[in-house]
Structures are given as structure tokens and as C-alpha cells.
């Protein structure tokens, strides 16, 4: 641990059978390889997503109808959710249900009620989410 300048010298870079210069070059290369692959991945992803996205989208009419139907279904559910909330509010005036919702803000399975209700407020989110993801 004690440091002294006595050991200074180029020989240190090649001590034992370890060539520190070669190692450094390979190290730099590995850094470049990693980041270049990431670059290539990024470049190709939009293209990949588009190609993957096209296949299920082929029967456009059917898909459109399905999406439309889903939206209608969801809106029904949202209305139902609002009705539920109203009912609960009437019967449990001590804000019980509020706490229950809050406690799992992000977990809306199975019918995603609150998620969709939230979505109503942030329209861009809903539309982005509803169509391409499902």
C-alpha cells in the first residue's frame, strides 16, 4: 500500500505476461462494440417495430372494427366505474373507497377501470395506449 516512485517505468506496462497496452486497446474496443451495437439496435428498432406491427394489422377492416368495439366496451366499463364510484360514495360517506383506490393506484387489473378513467382525463395517453398495445 505504501507508494514510492522507485517502481516508475515503462516496464510496468508489460509486467509478467500481462500486456497493459493491448488490454487497454481491447478495453476501448469493447466499450465501442457495446455502444455501437446499442446504436445499431436503436437505428433498427423503429423499422423492426413497424414490420412487427404490420402483421397483425393486415386485416385492417376487422381490426378497426375490433378496436372500435373495444372502445365502446371500454366506455361502457368507464360509465359503470363512475356509477360504482357514485354508489360507493353514497353508501360509504367516510371516504373508505378513496383510500382503497389510492393504495393501489397503479394496479387496475382485471378491468382497468380506474386506469381508463384516468385515461379519459389525459386523452392522448388513452388513445396511444388503447390502440397500438392491445
Amino acid at each position, binding site marked *: 500500500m505504501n507508494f514510492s516512485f522507485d517502481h516508475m517505468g515503462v516496464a510496468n506496462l508489460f509486467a509478467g*505476461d*500481462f*500486456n497493459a497496452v*493491448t*488490454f487497454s486497446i*481491447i478495453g476501448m474496443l*469493447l466499450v465501442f462494440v457495446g455502444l455501437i451495437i446499442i446504436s445499431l439496435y436503436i437505428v433498427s428498432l423503429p423499422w423492426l417495430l413497424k414490420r412487427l406491427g404490420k402483421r397483425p394489422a393486415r386485416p385492417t377492416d376487422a381490426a378497426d372494427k375490433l378496436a372500435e368495439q373495444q372502445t365502446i366496451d371500454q366506455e361502457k366499463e368507464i360509465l*359503470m366505474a363512475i*356509477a*360504482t364510484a357514485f*354508489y*360507493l360514495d353514497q*353508501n*360509504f*360517506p*367516510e371516504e*373508505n*373507497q378513496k*383510500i*382503497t383506490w*389510492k*393504495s*393501489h393506484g*397503479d*394496479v*387496475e*387489473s*382485471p*378491468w*382497468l377501470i380506474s*386506469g381508463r378513467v384516468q385515461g379519459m382525463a389525459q386523452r392522448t395517453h388513452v388513445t396511444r395506449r388503447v390502440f397500438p*398495445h*392491445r
Partner: protein
Amino acid sequence: MDFTSFFNNTAIAHLEWGNLVMILVGVVFIYLAVTKDYEPLLLVPIGFGIIVGNIPPIAGMPLGVYSEGSVLSYLYFGVTKGIYPPLIFLGIGAMTDFSTMLSNPKLILLGAAAQLGVFLTFLGSLYLGFSLKQAGAIGIIGGADGPTAIFLASMIAPELLGPIAIAAYSYMALVPVIQPPVMYLLTTKEERRIRMKAPRKVSRKERIIFPIVAFLICTLIAPGAITLLGMLFFGNLLKESTVTDRLANSARNALIDIVTILLGFTVGASTQAQTFLTPQSILIFILGALSFVVATAGGVIFAKIMNLFLKEKINPLIGAAGVSAVPDSARVVQAVGQKEDPGNFLLMHAMAPNVAGVIGSAIAAGVLWSVLGKFQ
């Protein structure tokens, strides 16, 4: 120092098929969480943890959860010593509202009935040849409560902790898939349409006294539940007393979030294919699925039995919420009930057996621990 030795220092050189399978499992977990909203708070950390845990490490470098001195091993310490689950229970207690249960005490029994899944799975595991301790730890998957399962496994069968934790959380996420068929099978259309009356209002005094008395009742019977129920009811007292609002707030936000992140991530990272992909793990997954089915059936059937004696009938669907998996199983009940009768609001009624199921599972875990803990 040549390219070959360098290649041996990469992880690709050591990648096995099992790792790829597990990485795919991790990706599926994240996919389900993001697109289906299945318990994302659990599945995202576990899923990414699985991916991290299946990058094959280099021999001699402390990297994985099982590698002494590694960072992940220090974070995993909270899992192996059972420290994270009680802290999560503290936060859950600080967000749980026991009001519906207090206004509907008879529904509590449904939370007891659902523990049938625990004990039948225990017997099934014994039959298959697992040791007593292992069988107990596998049985508790039927409690449908991730922290409880991890806690008991860490105490009596640490060698099975990984598969038990993953099974428990997977099925909790899959509750909306597993439960409805069982519920339809065991109930008639008329039963599913039963409406229930709005329960009475609960006073602040009742809510403050409840966590103290409930803790005493449960742990005087099953002292093995002291740690989990102590934290659950402590958190609830912090919330209900209202004079310790700021503590309850930190418990149900910063504390539970941080512990959830660390628990999910390290449990996921404990699934290295090399030790995880065994026939034993697959058996545990099958037993876990069965225990969820049995627990659901137990709750529903017990509700039907209760109806034989009650004047005001209860909707047997809410028996399914007795498995806990708060609040997902209560939501499944609401969804199934509403399909039959769009004007039927079972959610709040289902919350009573739901939280009672958490208590019931903790008692069951305490009993299993205190008796089985003594065996080899």
C-alpha cells in the same frame, strides 16, 4: 491477454439455454405488467430482476445474489432473513382500511375458509415427498400473499425461497385469470345476482382500538404471526390514530416503495436458471396453481354453507375474495358479479373477506412455523 481470454470474460461465452428461457420469462413478466396491468408494482421489478439474474456471471467476481460479498447479496439479505416482508406489511397496514370488515364481521369467516388452500396444499406436498418444512412453505402459496409466503419460506425452507416467491407473485398477478372459472363452476346464476345491503358506518374509536385488539387475539393464539401481524396492525394504528399521520404517510410511500423495489428485484435475480430450472420448481408451480384454486373454492363453498343459516343471504362470489391478494381478488368479484347484474356493487363487500384473508394467512403461517419449525 488475447481475444480468447477476453471472450471468456464476456457473459455470452457462458450463456446457457436455461438463461435464455428465464430472460424470456422476465420479458413476459414485464410485458404482462405493461400491457395488461397485472400487478405491475411486482411484475416489473421481478421481471427485470429475472433478466439481471440470468446474465451468467464470471467465476470469481461477486455479482449475483448468491455470491458472497456482492452488492446483490447484501440487498438479498432482507429477503433471506425475512426482513422485507414485515416492512411491506407495515406499509400495507398504513394503507388498509378495515372499515368494511368492522361493519360486516360475519364476512370475516370467508377469509378463514380460504385458508383451506394452504393446508390441502401442505398435505399434497407432503404426499409428493417434500419434507415437512418444505411442504409447509409450499402450502402457504395458497395464502395468496407474497410477503407472507417469502417470510415463511425464509424461516423454514430457505432452499425453496426462489420458486415459492415467484410462484406466489405470479399467481397473485394471475388472479383475474385463475379465479373466474372456479367461481362460475361453483355458483348458480341466481347466487351471482344476490345483492347485499350497504353496511353501517364505523366510528373512529372502533378503528383505533381494532388493530390493538386484533393483534392481541391473533398472536396470543398463534405467536408465530407476531412479526407479520405486529407490523400490519402497527401500520394500521399509525394510520387510524390520525395523530401519527406523517409516520403513516412515510410508511405507505417511501418505505414500502423502496422495500418493494429491493424485494422484487432481488427475488427476481435469485432465479438463475442453473439452480432454478428444476423439476422441483415446476412441481411447486403446479402445487401453487392448485392451492389458488382450492382456496377460491373454499371461500365460495363456505359462503354457500353460511347462506344455509343466514336470513340475509350473502353473495357467494365474495367468498373468492377470502384468498387475500388484496385488492385484486375483490376486483375479480366485482367484475364477475357485475357481468351478471350491472347494477350490483360487490367491491366493498368483498374487501371484508379480502383483508380478513390476509390476517387468516398470517395466522396459518404462524401455526405452520411454530409447529413445523421444530422438525429437521
